[in-house]
C-alpha cells in the first residue's frame, strides 16, 4: 500500500495505461502544455509526445466525436472534459453516437472510449461551472458511469474503464483531487457495477457516491463515537450499471436508508436508489427513505451562499436523527 492523493492516483493510472497499451491516447482542452486545468495530466505531454497527448481547439462536440471515430478503429481514447459543465456541448456525440454505435452497427463496432470529467461544487466557480450532471448519463443505455470517491477506487476503476470496450463516463470531483488515501500496489482493477460497503453498521444505511460518500463516512464514524449509532455506509461507485444487490442487502439488514448526494434532489441519483429500494426491499423498511441532496438552485458564486446551497454534514446528521432517534434497537436473538 502507498498513500497518495486522488489526483496522483489518476495521473499515475493514465501514465501506466499509456505505457501499457500504445492504442491509448489522451485528448482534451489544455491537457498537454498546460498539464490540465487540474493538473491530472502533468508531465504526460513531455513523456509521451503530442500524438499521445493531444491539445484541442475549444470545441467539445468536435473532439468527443473525433475520439469516437478513433475508438471505432480500435484506439482507446481517454477524453478529458475540463469540467462536466462543458459536457453539455458534446451531448449529441455522447448520447446519440458513443452510446448507440455498437447497437446500431449490429455489434460490429465497439466504442472503447473513456470520458474523464470532474463535477461538483464548493470551489467558487459559480452557477455554470459547479454542477453535478452525471445523472444525465446514468439514464442512457449503452453508457457506463462510474464515480469513485477514494484514490484506491479512482485507480482501480480508471484501469477498468480504459480496458472496457464500452464508452465509460468517469466522474471525478474537484473537491476530491487533494484528498489522500491508501492505494494498493500492483495492477489491480475494480469491476464496474460493484458497490462498496465503506463501513459496516446495523442501525441505518447511508447510500452515497463520489465526494458525498467521503462526507457520509466521516459523519458515520463521528456518530458512532458520539452517540453509539451503528451506521453502514455504502458507496455505489458505479451509477450505471447500479449494484442493486449490495444496496438492497444493506437496507434489508439495517431497515433504514438515507441517500446522500450532491446533485439536485428531483430526478436525481437518489430517486433511482429510492425506487430500487422500495421495489426490492419494501418489506424490510421501518421508515421512509430519506434523501439529503443539493438545493434545487443554480449554485451561487459567493462562498457562504454556495456552502448554504450544497448539502451538508449537518443536514445529514439531522436526517439520521429523524430516522434513528432511539439508540440502537435491541436485536432479539
Amino acid at each position, binding site marked *: 500500500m502507498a498513500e497518495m492523493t486522488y489526483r496522483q492516483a489518476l495521473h499515475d493510472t493514465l501514465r501506466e495505461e499509456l505505457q501499457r497499451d500504445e492504442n491509448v491516447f489522451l485528448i482534451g*482542452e*489544455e491537457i498537454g*502544455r*498546460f498539464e490540465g486545468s487540474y493538473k491530472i495530466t502533468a508531465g504526460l505531454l513531455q513523456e509521451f509526445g503530442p500524438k499521445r497527448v493531444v*491539445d484541442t*481547439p*475549444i*470545441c467539445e*462536440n*468536435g473532439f468527443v466525436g473525433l475520439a469516437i471515430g478513433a475508438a471505432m478503429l480500435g484506439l482507446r481514447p481517454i477524453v478529458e472534459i475540463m469540467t462536466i459543465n462543458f459536457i453539455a*456541448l458534446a451531448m449529441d456525440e455522447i448520447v446519440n453516437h458513443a452510446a448507440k454505435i455498437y447497437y446500431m452497427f449490429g455489434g460490429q463496432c465497439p466504442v472503447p472510449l473513456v470520458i474523464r470529467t470532474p463535477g461538483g461544487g464548493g470551489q*467558487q*466557480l*459559480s452557477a*455554470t*461551472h459547479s454542477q453535478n450532471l452525471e445523472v444525465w448519463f446514468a439514464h442512457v443505455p449503452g453508457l457506463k458511469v462510474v464515480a469513485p470517491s477514494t484514490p484506491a477506487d479512482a485507480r482501480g476503476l480508471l484501469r477498468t474503464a480504459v480496458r472496457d470496450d464500452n464508452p465509460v463516463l468517469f466522474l471525478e470531483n474537484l473537491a476530491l483531487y487533494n484528498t489522500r488515501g491508501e492505494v494498493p500496489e500492483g495492477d489491480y482493477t475494480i469491476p464496474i457495477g460493484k458497490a462498496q460497503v465503506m463501513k459496516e453498521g446495523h442501525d441505518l444505511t447511508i447510500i452515497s457516491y463520489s465526494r458525498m460518500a467521503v462526507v457520509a463516512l466521516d459523519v458515520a464514524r463521528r456518530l458512532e463515537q458520539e452517540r453509539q449509532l451503528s451506521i453502514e455506509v455504502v458507496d455505489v461507485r458505479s451509477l450505471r450499471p447500479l449494484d442493486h444487490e449490495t444496496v438492497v442487502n444493506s437496507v434489508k439488514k439495517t431497515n433504514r436508508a438515507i441517500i446522500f448526494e450532491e446533485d439536485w*434532489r*428531483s430526478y436525481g441519483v437518489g430517486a433511482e436508489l429510492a425506487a430500487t429500494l422500495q421495489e426490492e426491499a419494501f418489506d424490510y423498511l421501518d421508515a421512509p427513505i430519506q434523501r439529503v441532496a443539493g*438545493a*434545487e*438552485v*443554480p*449554485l*451561487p*458564486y*459567493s*462562498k*457562504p*451562499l454556495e456552502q*448554504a*446551497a450544497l448539502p*451538508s454534514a*449537518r*443536514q445529514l446528521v439531522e436526517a439520521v436523527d429523524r430516522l434513528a432517534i432511539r439508540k440502537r434497537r435491541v436485536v432479539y436473538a
Partner: protein
Amino acid sequence: MAIHQIDPGLVPFQILDPEGNLVGEMPALSPERLLYFYRMMRLARAFSDRIIAMQRQGRATTFGSLTGQEAATVGLAAPLQPQDWLATSYREIASLIVKGVPLSTLVYSFRGYTPPNWPAETRCLPYQIVIGTQIPHAVGLAMAARIAGDPVVAVGVCGDGATSEGDFNEALNFAGVFRAPVVIIVQNNGWAISVPRHRQSAAPTLAARGVGFGVPAALVDGNDILAVYETVRQAVERARAGDGPTLIELLTYRLGSHTTADDASRYRDPAEVEAWRAKDPIARLQKFLRRRDLLSEEQDEEIGASVLAEIDAAVREAEAMPPMAPDSFFDYVSATLPPRLQEQRAELLRFVAPSPSQRQPGERR
C-alpha cells in the same frame, strides 16, 4: 474603408502606428472625445490591476486580466448608441464600463454576488463566462430588434478561442442568412489559456471566417483605438441602415495571465510578451495626444489620479453593500417559486439565517 466586401485580406486596418503616428484618415473625433478614450483606457487598466490585487487579498474572486486589450475593448463600445445591445465575455469589462455599467456594480459582482441592480438600461448583458455562447444571443437580440422594427444594433464579442465553438459559427451563419443587424467582434489576443492562436484554427485570419458565411469582415489592429473605433462605427451604421452583419477581428494581445488562477509565464515566451508590450495601446494613444498637444504632462497625471480615485470610491461602495442573504439564491430560480422549492427554502432556513426581506419588522438577526 475598413470593411471590405466579404474578404478582409491579410493586412490589418490601422490609423495609428505603434509609435502613435497617424498613418490613415483621422476619424471625426473631438479632442474631448479622444481624451475620454484615453481616460477610459487608463481606467480599464487600473481597474484590472485593482481587482487582481483584491483577489490576491481574498477580497475578490477569480478575475481575467484586461491589460493590453484596452484599445480594443474601449474602442468597440465607444460607437454604440444607448439603445444598442452589447453581449460580451469576461474580457470586455472595459466595454461594459464605457456602455455605462457602474464600477461598483462590477466590483460587487467580482466579490461573488449577483448585482441586484444590474443596470438593464445600459443594454449590456451580464458578462458571459461560458465560451462563445453570447454570440448567438447577440444575433437573437439583433433579430428581435429587427422584427420589432427598432433601429437597434447588437454587438457580440468573444475571444479567438471561442471561434472554434459551434456557437460562434452557427451564430455567424444565422447572422448572414437573416441579415441580422449585428456586429460580431473577435478579440484575438493570441492565446486561449495556453493554446496559441495557430492551434485554434489553421485559417490565416479569423476574419476570413466571414467568407464562408457570406458576412463582410474586417481585420483590424486591435491596439489602435482609432482603427477599432472607426471600423466598429462603420459596421454599426451598416447594421442600423439594414445592410446586415459584419465580422470584425481585432488583433491584440493578452499581456497578463488568462485569469488569477493562471500563470502565463509557464507556457509563453517572454520575448513574445515583450514584443507586444512595445505595442501597448495606451502608450500609442498617449504619444499621439502628446504630439498633438492635446494632453499635457499635468493633465496626464491628473487623469491617472482621478481614475484611481474613481476606483477607490467604487470599491468602497461595493464593499459597503450588504452581502446577499444566504437563501437569496431561491429568489430568481424561476418567475414563481414552485411549492417543492418553497419547501426547500424553508428547510434551508432552519440551517442558515433568513434573508432581510423575510425577517419581521424590528426583528434582529
